[in-house]
């Protein structure tokens, strides 16, 4: 925000002396002072409209009433919001709004949480003087998830503005004039857009309704659970509406959490995987070549027995564990304990969707002040986006970038291969060949690198422009990894102002898995395995010594399994066969035992010897860490019918194996207890528990004690799964509502121009 706006002015509202920063709107000042000024069309963060005229107030020495939403408070101004004239104006405006509004509240989805209903009760009228027939238009289906009922529309244009300004999609417009105005979608009665559903959420009445929720229940019949979204790594808070142990809706109308009211299509409509018919609901054990239902006791017994057998015959080096980008921090932590002490192996890894370890080791002790939060993106004066299509892969990051550019005139700089929608906001954009982003960063840091004269010239200007910025946030995707991250940090720390970094991963707890040390060579908090002190500390905590030899990574594990060197593989919430493109026949030849904990019959699960059905993020308690390191609590909003949480499964198995002589038993029974252990022991996780319990976020800044100049990672280990707005790895396949939109059939990075949508470019 500009410095000049901090000057205070004072004015009188309802006889109350108010002191506000110059430039404050009267409606905002009233809100802060607790004085009610009603409005429909005014919406913080969106352009002023003054269309509904509900906020009329009386200003002394002005003949006519003024709209408080466009009235800037001036020094010495005297405003009245509680006079007979104002009350009459509100009543009359409501009567106008209601001229065409149908009285179908009993069947309207908004009934019970409708702003027009509330206003009518508060200020309104119990009769209408209009005898003219109401205008009627049939309901329109704009997409499988957006419906428009024109008669209910009160023409506040919030939807049009949020689609244009907030989302930068511009899919909605106003058609016709005056009383016959209607909202029209962009493609002859149909929507072609990002299907974010922001228009539905922002609609004050029931004109825009959600195809996934409509006509199922009423707002007061549901219970509301604030939790974090299960899909991408941005960790938007989502409020799940529950009835009868079923999620009926997801939104964030209370503006709580890091995302305010923002949610993308996945967060808003991608919750129905929990009730998908293909969900595995009981343990399966392979008997005579086929997977057959088994009891929990038998399945656990089988796993424990065969793990012990494999461990005793082939040794700990023949065991492997693949972790998940979706399970909670507590579960990743337990999995780490399970691998390193129970199985006694360092063969533990996961699909790394961003080089979090690279950033942490490059920053070292500087991590605490150098990791950006989602809010800091909006506050930054310059944003650098490297190798990531944030609009598609990190929708909240893109939303924050747009807000920064729109509200605070921040400058956006992009280094990316190919066109991006965010280039519309960019001050400068450098198009580099795919895969050369790391080299471009290297050029920025060292001035050397073979990139061609044109790109080098552009990067030169890029560097010059950035040197003038005060507060820079650098966002980078998976293609910036290993040495490139170190170069980036070197370049960033050379800038004159404050520089913060954010590594952009793919899944809901990608960052958490990394922070919890699901690596063959790193312990929780990125503590190096080679450090004997760290090994000793964690070994003492987990009741058994940690072997010093680093394990093999995920790709090597899959290769070893094919070659018969790995005998037992334990997979939790991951699909390594698909992720790493492993070609395997029905059974992975070398493996004696493949255990999979998952929700669905993935490619990996199909080849498993034992499958344990796992609960989803919405069905368990724990914490997730988003890509910015912000920790949030997730809550058990619905009960899983059959499956159990990964936490429970691991806890039971650790006990079972401890009885057979592998590892030590653990005393913790709940995720809360393990969170406590994490807070006390994982570097950077010593956050306030109160902040988490009250539904807020706390930033974790996990990093090793000292920066490590030699940390490098193979290029084929850190890679993005290239999920877009409508895909979410394996989980996305089971979101039928999300997949019902026509946009979900298109792939934004498809090379064919006919399938590229103008709205996403």
């Amino acid at each position, binding site marked *: 925000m500009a410095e000049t706006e901090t000057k205070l002015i004072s004015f009188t509202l309802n006889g109350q002396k108010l002191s506000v920063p110059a430039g404050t709107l009267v409606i905002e000042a009233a809100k802060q002072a607790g004085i009610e000024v009603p409005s429909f069309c005014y919406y913080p963060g969106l352009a002023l409209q003054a269309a509904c005229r509900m906020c009329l107030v009386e200003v002394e020495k002005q003949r006519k009433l003024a709209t408080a939403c466009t009235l800037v408070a001036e020094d010495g101004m005297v405003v009245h919001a509680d006079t007979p004239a104002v009350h009459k104006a509100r009543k009359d405006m409501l009567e106008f709004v209601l001229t065409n509004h149908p009285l*179908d509240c*009993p*069947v309207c989805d908004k009934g019970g949480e409708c702003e027009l209903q509330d206003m009518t009760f508060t200020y309104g009228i119990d009769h209408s003087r209009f005898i003219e027939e109401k205008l009627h238009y049939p309901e329109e289906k704009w997409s499988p998830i957006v419906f428009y009922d024109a008669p209910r529309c009160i023409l506040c244009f919030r939807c049009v503005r949020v689609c244009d300004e907030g989302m930068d999609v511009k899919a909605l417009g106003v058609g016709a004039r005056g009383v016959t105005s209607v909202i029209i979608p962009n493609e002859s009665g149909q929507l072609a857009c990002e299907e974010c559903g922001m228009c539905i959420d922002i609609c004050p009445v029931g004109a825009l309704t959600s195809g996934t929720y*409509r*006509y*199922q*229940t*009423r707002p*007061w*019949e549901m219970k509301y659970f604030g939790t974090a979204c299960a899909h991408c790594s941005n960790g938007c808070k989502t409020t799940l509406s529950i009835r009868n142990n079923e999620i009926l809706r997801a939104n964030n109308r209370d503006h709580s959490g890091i995302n305010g009211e923002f949610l993308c299509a996945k967060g808003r409509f991608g919750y129905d995987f929990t009730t998908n018919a293909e969900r595995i609901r009981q343990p399966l054990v392979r008997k005579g070549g086929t997977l057959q239902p088994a009891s929990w006791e038998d399945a656990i017994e089988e796993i424990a027995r065969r793990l012990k057998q494999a461990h005793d015959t082939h040794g700990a080096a023949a065991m492997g564990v693949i972790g998940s980008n979706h399970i909670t921090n507590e579960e990743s932590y337990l999995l780490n304990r399970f691998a390193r002490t129970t199985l006694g192996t360092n063969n533990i890894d996961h699909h790394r969707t961003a080089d979090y370890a690279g950033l942490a080791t490059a920053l070292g002790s500087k991590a605490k002040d150098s990791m950006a939060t989602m809010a800091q993106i909006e506050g930054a004066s310059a944003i650098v986006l490297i190798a990531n299509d944030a609009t598609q892969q990190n929708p909240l990051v893109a939303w924050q970038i747009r807000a920064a550019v729109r509200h605070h005139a921040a400058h956006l700089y992009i280094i990316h291969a190919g066109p991006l929608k965010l280039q519309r906001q960019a001050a400068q954009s450098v198009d580099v060949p795919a895969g050369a982003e790391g080299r471009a960063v290297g050029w920025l840091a060292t001035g050397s690198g073979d990139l061609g004269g044109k790109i080098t010239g552009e990067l030169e200007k890029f560097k010059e422009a950035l040197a003038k910025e005060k507060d820079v946030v650098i966002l980078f995707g998976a293609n910036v990894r290993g040495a490139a991250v170190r170069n980036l940090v070197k370049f960033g720390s050379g800038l004159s102002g404050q520089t913060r970094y954010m590594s952009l991963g793919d899944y809901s707890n990608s960052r958490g898995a990394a922070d919890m040390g699901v690596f063959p060579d790193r312990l929780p908090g990125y503590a190096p395995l080679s450090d004997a002190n760290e090994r000793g500390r964690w070994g003492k905590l987990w009741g058994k010594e940690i072997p010093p030899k680093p394990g093999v990574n995920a790709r090597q594990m899959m290769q070893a399994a094919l070659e018969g060197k790995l005998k037992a593989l334990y997979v939790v919430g991951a699909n390594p066969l698909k992720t790493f493109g492993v070609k395997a026949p029905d059974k992975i030849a070398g493996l004696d035992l493949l255990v999979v904990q998952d929700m669905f019959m993935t490619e990996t699960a199909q080849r498993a010897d034992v499958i344990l059905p796992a609960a989803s993020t919405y069905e368990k308690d724990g914490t997730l860490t988003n890509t910015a390191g912000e920790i949030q609590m997730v809550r058990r909003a619905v009960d899983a019918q059959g499956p159990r949480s990964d936490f429970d499964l691991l806890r039971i198995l650790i006990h079972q194996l401890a009885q057979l002589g592998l590892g030590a038993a653990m005393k913790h029974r709940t995720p809360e207890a393990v969170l406590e252990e994490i807070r006390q022991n994982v570097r950077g996780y010593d956050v306030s528990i109160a902040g988490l319990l009250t539904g807020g976020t706390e930033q974790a800044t996990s990093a090793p004690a000292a920066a490590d100049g030699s940390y490098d990672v193979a290029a084929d280990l850190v890679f993005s799964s290239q999920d877009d707005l409508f895909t979410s790895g394996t989980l996305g396949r089971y979101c039928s509502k999300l997949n019902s939109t026509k946009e979900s059939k298109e792939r934004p990075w498809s090379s064919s121009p006919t399938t590229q949508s103008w709205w996403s470019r």
Partner: protein
Amino acid sequence: MASVVKEFFRTFVILYKGFKVTFITMFKKPTTENYPAEPVHFQARYRGIHVLQRDENGLEKCVACFLCAAACPANCIYIEAAENTADNRISDADRYAKVYNIDYSRCIFCGYCVEACPTDAITHGHGFELAPYDINAMIYRKEKLLEPWPPPKATPRPSTPSPVGATR
């Protein structure tokens, strides 16, 4: 002597007062009903087992607005709503009640639901024989509460006494 006459009169007055109602009622038509041997007579506004009404086309009047459930002080109404489609049209509006249960082990027959109903879909009928052997049988489903369609010929309506058992 005078005291005897006085006593006689006082006794007579007391007896008259005591038996006045008895004597008057003795010659009136009895108000008791010979239930269950004979049908029961109801006042028109008697609040009995609910009836879910249909409109003149046989469509259900209930639009699943949940207002009855919201008004219910005993919390005994349970509804699940669903959308009407062209090939499955149940009510006249956009939605209908897929499930509509009333738990008569909780219902206190206060009539708030009837008062709350914006479409006059739920009304009180004159049924009252609720006692079952199994408490689960006291949860009445929509199928049991709905007015039959097509209407049975010459349905005895509340004005005429209906035979026990067929009472609504």
